[in-house]
């Protein structure tokens, strides 16, 4: 069946495969299992963030606060494990709950106080970062700063099946469920409707406030999962965790076909987008191009993606006819 949530990432997937093929032929050290493992480890959390970011973007919004939510959830974990000595079975749900609450608060500011998403999440980006500093166990108990977390459940996340890290499977589950949510549920249709034509959605009785809050909650939840992945790998957390990560996540989602206009995109594209950025960054490094050229290339890829989307596909722009 045809639906807006269908997966139109054929071009992106081809581009991704071609890029991988090029790097494989250019660099022997790129085509090793170890390197693929590095890419999967290094960018699975980015994929999760990008999938989460797709929800606000589908609504025509944006979530700039995810980097701060990652830090906040990470610090909650740090405090829970190291200050209170709680087990993972308690701390992990609390971390995720914190990030969901932060996401819902974003949604409330946007629908309740009617702030523009960009502004609301810009402000909460500062607030959540501030809260992270305020609750930082590193500051309260400096002796804990060098201690690492040794909870079995948490560390269990930093494991592998062959070359595949658990984090990658987590990403697959998140992306799969998100795609199911978007493509096959009424909530998904509501998201596309709100993003595609807000007024039509309102008049159709779609609960816009609730839909918005849920989308930002999902974005927050994904930030919590990303924090979980990062903390399990580092076995600690820091106040400056995830600074600037929101821009990469947004870039990955856009490269993955989510349009900032809202109403078009899916949950699979952002995953490919995240790994495309990862492959290029790591590939360039292995080919011997200086690290400083990488942001330049990331920027050019982003421009290329949006140019492709707007100029080449935009010819067939969808619109509601009015006059003749």
């Amino acid at each position, binding site marked *: 069946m045809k639906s807006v949530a269908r997966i139109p990432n054929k071009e992106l997937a081809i581009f991704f495969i071609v890029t991988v093929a090029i790097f494989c032929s250019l660099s022997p050290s790129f085509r090793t299992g170890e390197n693929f493992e590095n890419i999967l480890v290094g960018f699975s959390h980015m994929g999760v963030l990008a999938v989460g970011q797709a929800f606000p973007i589908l609504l025509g919004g944006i979530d700039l606060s995810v980097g701060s939510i990652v830090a906040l959830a990470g610090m909650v974990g740090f405090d829970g494990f190291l200050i209170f000595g709680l087990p993972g079975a308690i701390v992990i749900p609390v971390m995720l709950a914190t990030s969901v609450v932060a996401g819902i608060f974003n949604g409330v500011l946007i629908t309740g106080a009617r702030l523009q998403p960009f*502004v609301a999440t810009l402000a909460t980006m500062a607030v959540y970062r501030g809260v992270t500093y305020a609750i930082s166990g590193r500051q309260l108990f400096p002796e804990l700063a060098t201690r690492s977390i040794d909870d079995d459940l948490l560390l269990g996340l930093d494991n592998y099946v062959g070359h595949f890290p658990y984090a990658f499977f987590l990403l697959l589950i998140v992306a799969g469920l998100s795609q199911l949510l978007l493509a096959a549920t009424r909530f998904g249709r509501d998201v596309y409707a709100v993003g595609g034509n807000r007024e039509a959605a309102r008049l159709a009785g779609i609960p816009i406030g609730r839909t918005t809050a849920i989308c930002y909650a999902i974005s927050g939840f994904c930030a919590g999962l990303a924090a979980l992945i990062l903390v399990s790998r580092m076995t600690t957390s820091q106040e400056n965790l995830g600074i600037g990560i929101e821009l990469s996540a947004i870039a990955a989602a856009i490269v993955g076909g989510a349009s900032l206009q809202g109403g078009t995109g899916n949950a699979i594209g952002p995953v490919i987008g995240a790994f495309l950025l990862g492959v290029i960054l790591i590939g360039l490094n292995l080919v011997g191009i200086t690290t400083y050229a990488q*942001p330049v290339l990331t920027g050019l890829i982003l421009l290329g993606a949006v140019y492709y989307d707007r100029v080449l596909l935009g010819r067939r722009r969808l619109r509601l006819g009015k006059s003749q």
Partner: protein
Amino acid sequence: MLAERRRVWLVWHPRAALHASTALPAVLLVLGALFAILKPVFLSQENLISIVHQVAIIGIMAFGMTFVVMTGGIDLSIGPVLAVAGVLAAEVLDKTADSVALATAAAIALSGAIGLVNGVLVARLKLPPIVVTLATLSIVRGGALLMAGPDLHLIRGPRAFLFIGSGTVAGLPFSVLLFLVGAAFFTFLQYRTRFGLSVTAVGDNERAAHLSGLTVARVKTIAYILCSCCAGLAGLIQSSQVHTATATYGMGIELDVIAAVVLGGTSLAGGSGAIPLTIAGVMLIGIIDNGLGLLNVPIEMQLIAKGSIIIGALAITNRDLVLEH
């Protein structure tokens, strides 16, 4: 003078006049009074000058940003532009035996060129501004790193260059003077020139502006160039103030600048906006930073307070706007 200006706002921007122009000064006064009561030194001349001194860099960038936001755009790339301008100036000073004129000209020219690229991509190719400037943010940051590496570059002389950031004229820091001149210039630009009226018109209704014979793409492109040049100037001030330049200056500064502009009642959806209110927004951020600093509020609480005050101020100024729709 104040009455005159108020009248101008009411004439040109009825919506902004109704909301930000009444609510924002009120918030400013209340906060100012609060800090003055808690810390009388807040009202001292030195402290007041130091507030402006602190916000001069953000303020100058906010002027250019106001026009960009009014045209329905946004410029996220100003942080790296600030950095690259400083780095280039340092480089030129180094290579040309301290030619200040050449260094400043090169820095401003490069900034303007980056603005031109942003403007062309947004206005001619009609790509979404957030994505375009997010991309140029990345590209310019990378370019600055390629040019200068991650190290600090010391700027020792010449005195004329250091004057930009550290000199004083009649007791006023030169950067404060630049801020005041910028404020006057941009206010004039907005209200008394064809370009200013065109910016408002393009932001209000782009299609109608096009059908009225305005050159929409050119107006937008100039707005991006101005914004980028402001960032370049800010970069010069910063580098000359701290006697160093590095490719990593200005990380995240775009968000402070945008916050100041939005506090000033400029809608991210384009259209309404007013330079005088942007100044008020900038001052609000300056007063919050300064007051909380004087009160020895720890940095994390400052972050929380700043975010909350921004949310609160916007929630108040947005209210009437919501009722209208």
